[in-house]
């Protein structure tokens, strides 16, 4: 009896398996976009966001107060949910936000069946929430030590153990239902960028309080899409938000010489946005399956493809025939990002500002084979960085060329010889001038990609006779040791939070030592220029200051300035309107899909 039953069951299982293999994917008449991202998301509570990909997804669900124009390069701020980009009043100390009336949140049980309009109070609430001590918001620095009265409120709240969301703050005045005026402690012309972060996107207080600890899974915004399904770390499904106010493409800043811009204008034109019904996002952490699934047409956009496969797609700046034949479009982007290795300026061996230690650092910098880094690790999909400022941000100067960061073994060796870093015991490795051993410790993270960096460092240093040992640590330990200054040389990278050079130059600002300035570089001349630049709006004068700051750091070589990585984003032929934005990345609002072509390709 039992055997008969189980046999029957097994037949059924087999039959099911067979059917499912044979069954074609059911045709879906909706416009469904499938995207693959290289890192797992963490969740969708704007104020809690830390990682890039969760932020990008939030950008589809929430409206930021200010936004970036889709086509303008470099990135340009445009109004989001406000009438216009606030003007800098009182030399950049006061900003007034006027919310457009009639913007509604997506429906949610938290609103108890009522439509919920977005008001100025929501912006104010979100800014406070970013400072909630309980939240430990990673991006709280956006509004730290800036708004009059807010820091005091936070201190008071910390003492009470609970964030005060109700006591009025002097620097955040609600002039009326739709108007918020913010007053800063000191002039800051870059302050408005803080409002083009998904982290400051307004959220409804009812929603936050309803879902309490589970806000990551319940994003309720005013943006074009809403979250409908979430299989953590595997699948995120967005669908059109019926309450969305609608938008049209702004073509004023388009570059008609750019084929991508032309395609966007041609295919999107003045259609009412969004055009997509549904977006399925697949986080895939392994590179092989991610790449293969795109070639298999399982996804429509391969976001940020790994450089290792770049040569399969692009050869000598041309799309390889096999890819081109399929109509796949390849978007090449130099990211507004810089990679670098920072020395610990307080370390007795590599730190210090005297000629001997300066010489050591500069020799190490010149000895590091950055050319090979670009050729082998990045497959030539990277650009040599000349300063901390990457292309695509305001203040980038393409003419700035730092010769002393170029790879040059002979110069490195000569410099070491000159300052007494020579091999005294004949073991092939140099000692310090006082005869003590010279061992450089290179600290980075565990992982395949980081292993390559380490391999290159070990190799390069061996070639100029310096013993370098690599220490790979778990991410947490790495952060701890970096913050605590327990390293000699460590690996890092910084991607633009907002499109201004200040975001990068702060990484060497003396008072930021121990936090953003991990190498604890302190140069009074540099700090003075940095503070001057803060008080200036975008202007040639400010750009001059930026350039001088970049020049100032070169002799002291606190960094091995690395590269600006280039990435390829692959787009299937049936996807229209794609134009990668340097800051806000993929905006599904502006995309369209040719469903017939997509289905036809799948059937093949």
């Amino acid at each position: 009896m039992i055997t008969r039953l189980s046999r029957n069951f097994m037949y059924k299982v087999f039959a099911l398996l067979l059917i499912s293999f044979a069954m074609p994917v059911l045709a879906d008449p909706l416009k469904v976009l499938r995207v693959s991202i290289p890192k797992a998301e963490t969740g969708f509570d704007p104020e809690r966001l830390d990682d890039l990909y969760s932020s990008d997804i939030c950008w589809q669900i929430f409206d930021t107060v200010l936004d970036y124009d889709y086509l303008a390069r470099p990135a340009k701020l445009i109004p989001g949910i406000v009438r216009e980009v606030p003007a800098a009043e009182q030399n950049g100390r006061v900003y007034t936000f006027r919310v457009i009336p009639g913007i509604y949140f997506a429906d949610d049980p938290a609103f108890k069946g009522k439509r919920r309009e977005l008001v100025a109070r929501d912006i104010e609430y979100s800014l406070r929430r970013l400072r909630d001590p309980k939240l430990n918001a990673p991006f709280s620095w956006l509004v730290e030590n800036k708004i009059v009265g807010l820091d005091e409120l936070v201190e008071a709240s910390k003492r009470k153990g609970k964030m005060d969301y109700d006591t009025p703050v002097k620097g955040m005045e609600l002039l009326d239902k739709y108007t918020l005026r913010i007053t800063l402690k000191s002039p800051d012309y870059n302050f408005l960028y803080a409002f083009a972060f998904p982290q400051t996107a307004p959220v409804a207080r009812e929603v936050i309080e309803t879902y309490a600890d589970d806000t990551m899974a319940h994003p309720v915004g005013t943006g074009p899409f809403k979250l409908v399904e979430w299989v953590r770390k595997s699948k995120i499904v967005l669908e059109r938000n019926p309450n969305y106010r609608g938008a049209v493409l702004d073509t004023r800043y388009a570059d008609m010489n750019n084929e991508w811009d032309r395609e966007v204008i041609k295919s999107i034109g003045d259609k009412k946005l969004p055009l997509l019904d549904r977006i399925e996002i697949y986080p895939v952490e392994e590179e092989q399956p991610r790449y293969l699934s795109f070639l298999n047409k399982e996804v429509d956009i391969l976001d940020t493809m790994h450089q290792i496969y770049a040569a399969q797609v692009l050869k000598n700046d041309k799309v390889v025939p096999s890819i081109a034949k399929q109509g796949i479009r390849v978007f090449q982007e130099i990211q507004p990002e810089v990679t670098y290795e920072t020395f610990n300026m307080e370390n007795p061996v590599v730190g210090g500002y005297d000629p001997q230690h300066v010489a050591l650092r500069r020799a190490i910098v010149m000895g590091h084979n950055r050319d090979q880094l670009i050729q082998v690790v990045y497959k030539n999909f990277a650009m040599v960085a000349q300063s901390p400022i990457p292309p695509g941000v305001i203040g980038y100067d393409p003419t700035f060329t730092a010769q002393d960061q170029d790879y040059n073994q002979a110069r490195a060796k000569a410099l070491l010889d000159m300052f007494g870093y020579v091999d005294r015991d004949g073991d092939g490795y140099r000692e310090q001038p006082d005869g003590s051993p010279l061992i450089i410790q290179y600290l980075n993270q565990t992982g395949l990609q980081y292993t390559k960096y380490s391999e290159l460092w070990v190799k390069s240093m061996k070639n100029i006779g310096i013993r370098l040992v690599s220490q790979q640590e778990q991410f947490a330990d790495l952060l701890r040791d970096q913050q605590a200054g327990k390293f000699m040389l460590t690996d890092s990278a910084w991607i633009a939070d907002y499109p201004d050079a200040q975001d990068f130059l702060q990484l060497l600002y003396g008072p930021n030592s121990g936090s953003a300035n991990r190498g604890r570089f302190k140069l009074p001349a540099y700090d003075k220029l940095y503070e001057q630049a803060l008080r200036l709006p975008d202007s040639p004068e400010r750009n001059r200051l930026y350039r001088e700051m970049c020049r100032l750091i070169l002799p002291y070589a606190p960094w091995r300035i690395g590269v600006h990585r280039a990435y390829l984003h692959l787009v299937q032929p049936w996807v229209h309107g794609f134009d990668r934005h340097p800051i806000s990345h993929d905006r599904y609002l502006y995309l369209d899909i040719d469903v017939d072509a997509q289905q036809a390709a799948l059937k093949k």
Partner: protein
Amino acid sequence: MSMTSFIIRRLWQMLPTLLGVMLLIFLLFNWVGGDPAYILAGKVSDPALIASIRKQLGIDQSYLVQFWVFIKQVFTFDLGRSWSTNELVSHILLTRLGPTLTLLIPVLLLETIIAVGCAMLVAYVRGSLTDRIVMMCCTVAMSISFLVYIIVFQWLFGFKLGWFPVQGWTNSFWVNLSHYAPLPILLAILVDVAPSLRLYRSFILDELHHDYVRTARAKGLTEKNIMLKHVLRNAAIPIVTNVASGLPSALVGLFLLEFFFSIPGLGREMVVAVSNSDFPVIKAVTVYLAVFTMVVNLLVDLLYRWLDPRVAYK
């Protein structure tokens, strides 16, 4: 001794082991492991923030207090939240189990059926050339790294031949089972069958050496009957207990597959947690899998007693 009192006694005996497991994990993560405050502090942090996080996590307390808190957490199924995603750890455990089981159950079923079937066949022709060749193939198959299998077969089946999707997962069990699971399942079976086949063959051969097989022959039973009835029924005891006691390891053992095929299972969660130093998740997965292991061991014992009339409840 009755079954109930046997179970009660065994459950009682689990307590010291559980305590030991908790102590081990506590020592590893709260004592040897690093300071978690830095992960939570994020990109830019200052000492004040670190201190406040330490206070919030309770790691400024004495180890004894921390251990007590940990024990309470384990028993109330409240291990806090993941440090990297802020997701409830209990929620992680519950939601990641489904995908893992979607893979694991077909793998276990098919693998056992295939392995036992083949083992019976080669045991039947033991000593023959077929037997030797199959055994040789098993040894070779077992010697190739799992990593190599996955890399090559994903490329081959997923891409070159295009038989299966390369990666993906949905909320629908049937879609998962029919679309996304077959290739990982196939791979798991491919890798697991060889060692199981060898093991089961040895179990069956052991049984074949027993005198009762001779008795059955002397009775005039057919070889097929002897194999399928007498031998299999006896060999089933070690086979079933082997499969069952391997269950806990299998839950995380598929982590490489889950990793490569982006299946949001327990194993992948564990690996991701390890690379992010997400201690609450690692601790929870470890403790609860240990509990699960103990429960499975108890069930295996009961199963064993049920299968083997010789063993009494003592």
